[in-house]
């Protein structure tokens, strides 16, 4: 690690005011300290934003306002989250370990970086870490990487097949959560999944945040009707990132047709992947396995699996169908 200065911000305004080139905001540190020790992140100045008082969860209209410094474990344990947003509670509980969930903040969770092995190893080329250096994952080991929205088709200097590792973000994407941001240029709100971006030809940019931007809160719209859940498939029973995960909500009319549904996939793309095409296909359609499959296939038609991650297409389809069936009333 390079030496760096550290300061605790008093409040949001103080945090943003302290921002200058080489600054990074520190939440729980569960990803940032990891990256600093790997040499991937090299801030000169850490501004600790974990104690700004942004650690409350409170009703906001019929929805919920969650401070960015709320610890993951507190988010998942909160009665209003468990009751109104089970998809979100389950997503958070599926992530990391108890210790990490106690330390990690909501803001930090959204901003965590890919766990692509090549990204994490500074001795290897990586277009995300060093634009233009190449993407060795494409010809190397990519079995845990993206099948959707990646840029493997671009020239070598821009390609990226990384996935976003957050479970919580997948649920927030399905919930149309609002991310409150404040920065040197003022405040704004971004609707999930719009916080994260596809790699395009700038794989070094994970999000739409601008330098100095600080996430201050996440706001949830009113709870979804119907039933919802989060499922995660991984290579061991716990404490592992998703191969594929799914946040799903299903609301069925009395006549057995779909009144509404939400579907978001994790482990498949650079962003939490909102399966909007599947949702559109399903809305108004009979809530049957056949229709669920049709919707999944519609969504996954644009998948571009790499030579060794084609199983993710099958897994994503199966997960969508099986989970929607579980959510039938």
């Amino acid at each position, binding site marked *: 690690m390079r030496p760096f200065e550290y300061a605790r911000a008093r409040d949001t305004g103080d945090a943003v005011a302290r921002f200058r080139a080489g600054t990074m905001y520190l939440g729980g540190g569960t990803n940032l300290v990891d990256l600093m020790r790997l040499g991937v992140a090299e801030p000169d100045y850490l501004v600790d934003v974990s104690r700004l008082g942004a650690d409350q969860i409170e009703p906001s209209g019929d929805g919920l306002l969650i401070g960015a410094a709320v610890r993951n474990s507190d988010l998942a344990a909160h009665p209003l989250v468990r009751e109104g947003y089970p998809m979100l509670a389950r997503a958070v509980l599926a992530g990391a370990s108890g210790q990490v969930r106690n330390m990690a903040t909501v803001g930090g969770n959204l901003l965590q970086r890919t766990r692509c092995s090549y990204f994490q190893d500074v001795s290897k080329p990586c277009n995300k870490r060093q634009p233009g250096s190449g993407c060795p994952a494409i010809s190397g080991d990519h079995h845990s990487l993206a099948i959707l929205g990646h840029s493997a088709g671009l020239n070598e200097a821009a390609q990226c097949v990384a996935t976003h590792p957050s479970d919580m973000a997948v649920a927030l994407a399905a919930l149309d959560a609002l991310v409150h941001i404040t920065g040197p240029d003022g405040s704004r709100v971004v609707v999930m999944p719009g916080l994260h971006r596809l790699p395009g030809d700038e794989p070094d940019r994970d999000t739409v945040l601008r330098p100095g931007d600080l996430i201050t809160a996440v706001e949830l719209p009113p709870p979804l009707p119907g039933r919802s859940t989060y499922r995660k498939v991984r290579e061991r029973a716990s404490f*592992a990132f998703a191969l594929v995960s799914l946040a799903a909500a299903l609301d069925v009319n009395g006549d057995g047709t779909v009144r509404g549904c939400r579907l978001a996939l994790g482990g498949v793309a650079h962003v939490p992947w909102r399966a909007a095409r599947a949702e559109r296909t399903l809305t108004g359609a009979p809530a049957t396995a056949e229709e669920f499959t049709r919707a999944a296939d519609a969504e996954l038609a644009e998948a571009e699996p790499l030579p060794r991650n084609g*199983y993710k297409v099958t897994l994503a389809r199966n997960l969508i169908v099986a989970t929607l069936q579980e959510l039938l009333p």
Partner: protein
Amino acid sequence: MNRIEGRDKVTGRARYAYEYPADDVAYAYPVQSPVARGTITSFDALGALAMPGVIAVLSSAEPPELGPDASPELALFQGREVAYHGQIVAAIVAETLEAARAAEKELRISYQAEPHDVRLRPDHPGLYAPDHVNPNFPTDTEQGDVTAGLAAAAFSVDATYTTPAMHNNPMEPHAAMAVWDSAGALTIYDSTQGPSADRDTIAQALGLPPERVRVVSPHVGGGFGSKGTTRPHAIVAALAARAACRPVKVALTRQQMFDVTGYRTPTIQRLRLGADGDGRLTALVHDVVEQSSTLVEFAEQTATPSRVMYAAPALRTTHRLVRLDVPTPSWMRAPGECPGMFALESAIDELAIAAGLDPVELRIRNEPGTEPESGLPFSSRNLVGCLHEGARRFGWEHRDPRPGIRREGRWLIGTGVAASTYPARRRPSQATATVHNGGFVVRIAAADIGTGARTALTRIAAQALDTSADRVRVELGDSALPAASLAGGSMGTSSWGSAVVKACEAMRKDGQTGHADTTEDVNADGGFARHAFGAQFVEVRVDPLTGEVRVPRLLGVFAVGRVIDETLARSQLIGGMTMGLGMALMEETVMDEGSGSFLNHDLAQYHIAACADVQDIDAAWISEEDAHLNPMGAKGIGEIGIVGTAAAVANAVYHATGRRVRDLPITPAKLLD
């Protein structure tokens, strides 16, 4: 009886290698090669040396003096050739670890990289037959006419099984603190499976007489083979301490461990089995392909269990090795037996299915009277007893062998069985026993790496002295104590126990003190094939839509001679099976061919079994008397637990799904395509 050091371990008082206080200690950080093959063309440490807190930089730019016989992996900083990615090419010594690590960026090392070859494949032109396979077995064996035997078979199997590279990954990273005294003698607090051998190797590497080196290692945070031979961190510590004239501590990072502490070679194994109409083997052929580094020839004895397990009138085993630009493989729990039995026990299962026979029954029908390859009588063998007892406890009777027919909700359910074996030998060791303060002190440079050796030896001594365990104190973990063999090869308790018993007997005769050296006794061990056996039964649940595999039940029943301590034995056997579970479902070190490096080199990417993966795992043993082993009548138990597990799981997955996976680990991707 609880583990003797239990209180120290649960209170945090037990000290491991990195944790001894020393005045004025400095820290060394090893620097690794980013190329897999090539030469260092230039080395500039000026920038690093100028960094705050940096005391010294060790490298081949100024080769430190070593002994003439330092082994290739320990001959650090002598030459400019790079043999594998991650090889240690320099070390930065500094006042703090942060300072040492931060200075790495300022080192200017240039490499002339050469194309590297890191891919093991069955048709590699560099494959050759080594002189022998570890530890001293013939590379190839053949008896009978396998061609005729296979041709005459009513049922046959011809299949290739592959196991990946796997890493030991003990929880404690390899670490050492080196302290030189003013007379040039070295004390090194190391994490080692054998203080005596570690002392000898370090002395040899440094060109010192062994008496000038002392290794202190009372507590070791696991090894599983990776701490069985001296690792380069110890040499880095010694050289850094010599250069800095201060005590120096080194701890490998988890990432560094993947390159320089050994690993299990990947294997490609072809099994050909032929059986007659009754399921009796007519031929068994086991061909193995595996790798070593260009530096050191390490030939894992993967096919040797096929020389032991089943009666076959025609039997051939071969090993072929290729030297790649990879780190040097080394021992990982049950070298040879572990990967070899995955292949053999999977193939036997496939044969049972082909022959329409129950897999337990098939094994019983092929039970040999003497060791198949050598013709030696077994000192004792109760595999059949294990199979029967395991089947009974597990509820194997009435098993419907048809695959894919049992379902509960989203899960397909299957059961599988596999046999286990591991040699039961011993090595020479010395011990002393002395009357002291109304009790007894036993001294031996054994190592307790989590096996409970301290406790087991206390019990052994107490029995030999006809006294209670609380009157016996065992001192181990220090090379200043009587020289002892390694904690390895499941030979710890048998080797040390032999010496301890003999020393106690000598003490009883003398009245005050006794010394023993078992070299002659061990050299006279012969005439028998000495192995432990076991049978493992597994129930798996597989979700065919997601490929997830869960193991709700895993039972091992073993025949291991006399069990010294039931609690320790159960823990050790279950521990081995837990590691086997990881091997079956999730463990794999990925070699990135582009960079020639182990890619998933941390504990988030290399998956070992976590608590949630482990449901009902149990171990039991049947009684077994064996007078040809050692004074205790005990067989080693540290490794046999892992041996049969992966095949039992793979066999159960086949039973659940109808899909035969011959390539470990059995991940969801392999069940989804």
